């Protein structure tokens, strides 16, 4: 039985053929995937449908077609799932007249269950202890994001959904939050981080679900997605002091689509990076040329993402 990377083992969230349209505009189209323990990055350009998908999962938006279930229940109908699910939305959904501490305390009071952690512990998780007693109206964007994360965490949810959670945060805050999300994923929680910032998704999640134009474009680890793109050759830069000679040899060997000669390197397009990696040292040794570097150019998520978007 082949394993489809769009579907997680022991899923807590299942999306089956879900579509959502607003009048003539189709925001999500026949999307099927699932989410389970660990951190899943939800990737897509602006307007891809990521936020709409998250709103359907959390029950904030209805499903025009198909099904969404969270812990086996319909999130639009069963409010009890909110014991186990928290959302950190993209928009500024905070009470500006409250302090950070009051806002987090309010979240625990609305939870109808003994809190798994104290307000102070939640503040500590997001490094907001010092500003906790200031009005949220005076917080920066990054501080508001962090207090929203704290309010989501204080009820110790099994499922944590974060929509663009790192917006407005500085590099230090970002690193801290990424580490936090990874730790939560390691604890077995279902963490979904939605973002259009590739670097964030790459750092925080091992599994990625990519959405483009409302459709599932790819799923799995970054490397696996790239490897699955068989119709797109890999780009590799090879450093050498004899680029023309090496290029001629590579073309004769037939393992490359194209060779671009640069001053002290070659830019190669090939289907088989591993074979190329074995061939090049042997070839340069035979030529008596120097071999100074071997750098794949497009195994990053950015490259994967660009291919996904541009191929539509």
């Amino acid at each position: 039985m082949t394993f489809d990377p769009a579907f997680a083992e022991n899923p807590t969230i299942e999306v089956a053929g879900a579509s959502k349209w607003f009048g003539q505009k189709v925001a999500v189209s026949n999307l099927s995937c699932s989410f389970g323990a660990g951190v899943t990055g939800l990737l897509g350009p602006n307007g891809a449908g990521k936020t709409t998908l998250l709103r359907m999962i959390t029950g904030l938006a209805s499903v025009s077609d198909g099904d969404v279930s969270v812990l086996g229940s319909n999130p639009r109908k069963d409010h009890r799932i909110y014991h186990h699910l928290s959302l950190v939305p993209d928009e500024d959904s905070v009470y500006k007249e409250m302090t950070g501490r009051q806002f987090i305390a309010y979240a625990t009071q609305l939870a109808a269950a003994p809190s798994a952690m104290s307000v102070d512990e939640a503040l500590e998780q997001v490094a907001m202890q010092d500003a906790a007693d200031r009005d949220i109206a005076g917080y920066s964007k990054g501080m508001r994001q962090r207090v929203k994360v704290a309010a989501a965490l204080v009820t110790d949810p099994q499922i944590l959904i974060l929509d663009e959670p790192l917006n407005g945060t500085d590099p230090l805050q970002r690193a801290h939050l990424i580490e936090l999300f990874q730790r939560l994923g390691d604890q077995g929680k279902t963490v979904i981080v939605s973002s259009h910032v590739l670097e964030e998704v790459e750092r925080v999640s091992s599994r990625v679900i990519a959405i483009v134009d409302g459709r599932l474009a790819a799923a799995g680890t970054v490397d696996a997605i790239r490897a699955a793109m068989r119709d797109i050759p890999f780009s590799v830069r090879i450093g050498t002091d004899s680029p023309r000679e090496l290029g001629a040899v590579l073309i004769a060997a037939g393992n490359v689509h194209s060779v671009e000669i640069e001053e002290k390197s070659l830019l190669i397009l090939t289907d088989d990076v591993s074979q190329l990696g074995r061939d090049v040292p042997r070839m340069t040794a035979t030529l008596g040329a120097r071999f100074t570097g071997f750098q794949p150019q497009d195994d990053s998520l950015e490259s994967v993402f660009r291919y996904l978007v541009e191929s539509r």
Partner: protein
Amino acid sequence: MTPVLALLVASIRQLLPLKRSLALGALQLVPAIVYLLASSNRTADAALDVFLDGGVSTYFLLVIPIISIVLSSSALGVERRDQTLSFIVLRPMRRTTIAITKLVATVVAATALHAIGSVALGGAHMFRFDADLDLILGLLLGAVVATIAYASIFIPVGFLTDRAVIIGLAFLLIFENGVVSALSALETLSPWRLGAAAFADMAGVSNDGLREAVRSLAWDAGRSVVVVLAMAVVSVAITTLMLNRRDLA
């Protein structure tokens, strides 16, 4: 604190920030000021007429509707505008519970303000002419009855549109003070008249002006209460339906 109580307290605080409370509290004093200005050097009977025609009419036609419409429109409207509705809705709480709590919060917040107006206006006449405490209680009951009716109408409207206040003012000026004045059969649909009827029954006072304004309504506080409670039940059902059916921000 239970979730419902937490939502109730937070909602009341949201409806009555300090500046707004002071402004609306000041508005509550206008009927008493009107009464005192107009009733100086008058006999008890003449002062009662001024109390009813000046003070009470200002209270029921102006103060109660404006305060009730503003607060009702804000109950869910401000959550929608500030994008905090998702924070409330994504809690393990039935949407019916949210709808009821918001209605109760609106009525409690408005009543806190109406208490100022009722004591000021009723007290002004009561202490000058040794009148009954029922005057103050009647004003407060009438205010609460009218507020429940306004909240029943304008909480759902505030959820649907950010123009709820202007719609409410148009409802007051065109429908209640225009159409209903011409067609007395529609008086049951006029919140301030329901409140005025409850006041008149409880306080046991009336004059030609009040009878003219509330012509066909039965002068029974109990009936007014039943009508507005029925409106509240329908309102909660509509609000719950909207919270369940509509896509929420």
